[in-house]
């Protein structure tokens, strides 16, 4: 049944979607940049665990408890780095 209420609902959903698309559009590259920065931050901190120089592992240990999300991000990014071309293309609007 097409009722005023239904139309109203579709209308709301449409605008909600449109706004979300635009919000994503306004931030997608910055998001990508942010993720890379957090990744690098953790790599800098955790470097001593994988043989990178500095800082002392001891210092990193103090921060580990607060970096749960970032460390997960680091592992995700490590995976992503093996297959980055498409991801990069998706972010950078070529074409």
């Amino acid at each position: 049944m097409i009722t005023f209420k239904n139309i109203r609902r579709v209308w709301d959903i449409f605008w909600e979607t449109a706004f979300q698309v635009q919000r994503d559009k306004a931030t997608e590259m910055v998001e990508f940049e942010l993720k890379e920065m957090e990744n690098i931050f953790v790599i800098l901190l955790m470097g001593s665990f994988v043989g990178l120089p500095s800082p002392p592992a001891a210092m990193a240990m103090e921060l580990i408890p607060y970096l749960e999300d970032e460390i997960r991000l680091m592992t995700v990014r490590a995976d992503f780095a093996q297959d980055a071309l498409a991801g990069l293309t998706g972010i950078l609007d070529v074409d």
Partner: protein
Amino acid sequence: MSTIITLAALVIYLGFYFTFGKKLQTNLLKSQDAPEAPSKRLSDGVDYVPTSKFVLFGHHFASIAGAGPIVGPAMAVAWGWLPGLLWIWFGNIFIGAIHDYLSLTASVRYDGRSVQFVAQDLIGKKAGKSFGWFILFLCILVVAAFGAIVAGQFASGNGEVASTFFLFCAAAIILGYLMYKTKLGIGVSTVIGLVLLVAAFWIGSKAGIKASSNVWYVVLFFYVVIASSLPVSILLQPRDYLNSFLLYFGLLAGGLAALIAFKGFDSVPVFTSFSAKVIGGQPSPFWPTVPLVIACGALSGFHSLVASGTSSKQLRDEKDSLFVGYGAMLTEGFLSTIVVVSISGFGILALGDKVMSTGALPRFTQSYGAMVNAAFPFMTQQFMALFAAIWVSSFALTTLDTTNRLGRYIVGELALPLKEKSPGAYEFLANKWVASAVIAVAGIGLAWTGNYTVLWPAFSGANQLIASIVMLTAALWVKKKLNEKYTNLVLYPAILLWITVTAGLIWYELVIIPLHFKDMANVKNVTTGVVVGVITLIMLVMNVVMIMQFSKNFKSEKVV
């Protein structure tokens, strides 16, 4: 006529979406029985994030729609309006949309890995490698083609397009500052940004910057190098955001105008000749050269990368991939249809009897202006033509920026094997500025020496070759991992595409490239001929290697 064609396009696209597309979904892919989508299974809140299909559609569409689906069809009307339109409709439905749809779904089944990974898995390492090379060539050629088109556009008239574009960039920079550096919310900054956008158009249309295209090549070169080295939040991101508004407005105004304008197609003949002068001013046979002219809009290899790079990790449910992958591509076909409609119907109003002799981009922008003006008289023809020019130029120039960024990565990636053998060479090529300059010098250099009617087909060729690998991959995927019964549904278009593009590029290599060597004293022509000729040749060789690898794997019963 314009209304009939536009309606026909809607009916055909929607019809195929609900019949053919749905059949693909339920019978071939059996998405209803698919395992949980990777966005949920591997959800990490970072890359794998379940997202509504409508949001994803908008995002995906805005990513794939750019200047490509406009320029190609505008060139193709030289064959008459019907041949191009048929390719935009049926090439899209049976090849392009399937290509996007399957690459998206395959990526979903591969846990969101990219189509490059899938190709590597199914065809072999060489397929993965050749992706990199094709993308590199594509980056150079797209800079060349778009550079030539934009420089021509900038140098035309009183330079209003140039001045408006730079004001537009300024608006984007201010918007970026407001959004990313101040406390203003997205709503307020967007409103300010749009006001600035309108102001840019208003001022730009009054005060042009007059300069020759040679000057613009220099400016573009520096633009590419500088813009691509800025942080994304300064220019790239806010302009991309503003671009999407241009796209929505352009598509909406154009679509409505095309629907309600009731105009006969008297500007362009239905059919001119099988060998109209399209590529390099030479008689170009419609088959096999049409995919070298109409790329995006009917089929684009780039889409598979966009689809499998980000969209596939965010699909909430595999069933949504029909809407996102297939649907977005059909929508892009609709955009290309509007381009054909505007030129065929309104070209004569804007350009008189010069429709066929005008360059592709002004041919579209002027016609578009006339079309929107005819439907909505309060929007002047001149203003809407400027709008269309900025719309295309801005997308093209964003591409110049992004391809340079992408190219930097690719150059380093391809140089990786050198790391052991000659570390010096590797260090050199992996250097950000060197890689950036390689793309910019080669790209803008070609734009300067060559003609867009020669460069554009080479770019499209590279693009279609990527699409061709993807289609072959998809055929293998269907045969080995899905339902062998349906293999031909993908295999035939894949083979048809491969033969067409290969034949097209061979024709290009034999007919267009030698033209550049007629007068060996003309250094510009010779350079274009050598560079584009060599690139095309390498691509052809890789393409042959690819089909051999494919047929070997296709015949083998080994389950990969």
